[in-house]
């Protein structure tokens, strides 16, 4: 489905340095029973956010009012495991528009790009710099500039460029999705299918 356009995002950031965060943590399987896409944000990181009685765990970053923002800075190998797109729906529904990590799992990254959450891969050194800056000042702001493909720590001007292919970049900037593209190719696909 079409989604919000993404161009330049300036925001405070939420740090989650844990490594190998899998999509079962982002949205546990028992919350995958909806037949519509909305409302997953309530259960984002459910078992890290709440105890079994539903009481918020105060040591989890989403329950710490010191941190907020539309950008999640995550540890390496973020989004591994299950292909559930619900994980990205939950991040989006909660309010995140961008996830930054030094390493993403493949399917998760594709899912992000398909629904308009920008995955930004940075070097491990820059990720460390981000975590340090957030620790020093939780209100520090980061700018993610998609047209220029840069991520900048606004307080210091520290910046790094990131990769994204031109096709996906164009889609994100205009809020297009792949189906629009594929439907326009119907004739070519029909020809291909007929030969198989």
């Amino acid at each position, binding site marked *: 489905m079409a989604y919000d356009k993404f161009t330049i995002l300036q925001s405070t950031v939420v740090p989650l340095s844990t490594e190998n965060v899998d999509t079962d943590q982002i949205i546990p399987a028992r919350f995958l029973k909806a037949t*519509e896409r909305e409302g997953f944000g309530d259960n984002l990181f459910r*078992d890290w956010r709440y105890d079994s009685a539903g009481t918020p765990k105060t040591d989890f970053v989403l329950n710490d009012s010191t941190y907020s923002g539309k950008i999640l800075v995550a540890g390496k190998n973020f989004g591994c*495991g299950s292909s559930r797109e619900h994980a990205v729906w939950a991040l989006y529904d909660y309010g995140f528009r961008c996830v930054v990590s030094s390493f993403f799992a493949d399917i998760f990254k594709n899912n992000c790009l398909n629904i308009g959450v920008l995955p930004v891969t940075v070097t491990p050194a820059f990720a460390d710099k981000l975590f340090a800056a957030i620790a020093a000042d939780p209100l520090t702001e980061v700018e993610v500039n998609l047209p220029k493909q840069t991520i900048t720590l606004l307080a210091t001007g520290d910046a790094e460029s990131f990769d994204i292919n031109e096709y996906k970049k164009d889609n994100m900037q205009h809020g297009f999705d792949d189906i629009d593209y594929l439907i326009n190719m119907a004739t070519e696909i029909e020809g291909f299918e007929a030969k198989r």
Partner: protein
Amino acid sequence: MEKNTLFDKIWDAHVVKSVPAGPDVFFIDKHFIHEVTSPVAFLNLEKRGIGVKYPHRTIATPDHNVPTVDQDQTIKDKLSRMQVEKLRENCAKYDIELHDLGSAHHGIVHVIGPELGVTQPGMTIVCGDSHTSTHGAFGAIAFGIGTSEVEMVLATQCIMQSKPKKMRISVEGALGKGVTSKDIILYIISKISAAGATGYFVEYAGSTIRSLSMEARMTICNMSIEMGARGGLIAPDQTTYDFLKGKQYAPAGEDWEKAVAYWNTLRTDDGAVFDEELTFDAADIEPMITYGTNPGMGIKVVDNIPSTEGMEGSNKTSYLKALDYMGFAPGEPILGKSVDYVFVGSCTNGRIEDIRAVAQFVKGHKKADSITAWIVPGSREVEKQAQAEGLVAILEEAGFELRQPGCSACLAMNDDKIPAGKYAVSTSNRNFEGRQGPGARTLLASPLTVAAVAITGKITDPREVFKA
């Protein structure tokens, strides 16, 4: 002549068009759907006012959330029932073949595809499930996709994909006694980590792999995603053809001969280049078990849990967080730890060969009193065969509870949940926090190791229990 890998040959034959500075428009031969990741895709098709372009290329079954008892009755859980009913509605509306609960070929989507002969060499296969990589055992490019991509396949039979890099993992030599294909893949993942193959598609090769049955090959390809790989595949050979011949959707007669002639071309050419090559010696592999909260955290069952020596920063913090969840300490042995549940099943190890292995080993034994033992066949076909071979009787005699087919306790979307704090040794594929129920502690192992644990009630080396 250009030297190509098996992966290149199949991939390149399915590219409708390469988008400049972008992904490939990639054609999908077969699409499997289930009740959890398809409803939103269908809903979006409706919103767009479009239908399913090639219904005969999609096959459906409800597996993820279904109960494994009383499948002939209405599903009690309202949300699960709604998802299954949506799947039925959508299949009827768009004329998609459905293998519903109770039907002859109902089961886990990655078990029934090969059983029906839908899965064939040279194909491209996707499903909204990361363990779609299972089908790679037949020499197919098979991988998991998100729901937006499920929608793309339904609407156009294509997805937009950038071609992954290529890795070859060779395993050479004879396996030791009590060592199974599950141990091979857990060993590989423990060596290269849960992210060691991210960005790659893996071809498994070598004499050890060639010697494996189709079931054993499926177990290996199934867990490719657990090291981050998009998928894994194995070149088809006589073992593949023997498995497929006579299956419902396999080619027959003259078509079979033609198909085999084509399938025989599906090999990596000598001299073809991979982006990464790894080789392992089968003699180094022993029964494996995981001790942490991702599948890369595995050791030989006889080894100690790794110490924190040499770890620092978020690496160490994450490691200690995992051990804290599991209730284990760095450096201690895992042998002898008490276990509460065993689970035999899932798309990793829920096939007939797995059930045979467990039955053969527990025959004449009783499970430990402290153990709850669930055995969940991957499909109705597996269940039927297990009955016919007398395996069910053996397992029930040993104290195992046989349930009806489905994903079950692998991801605990239904009632098959391990209680918080309890330990389960499981033949499934993921030991993530809460994977088998909130607070559940999962240790992954082979069907043989699980059988040994069921008997002793403790983490056990299967080679010690079944010496005879």
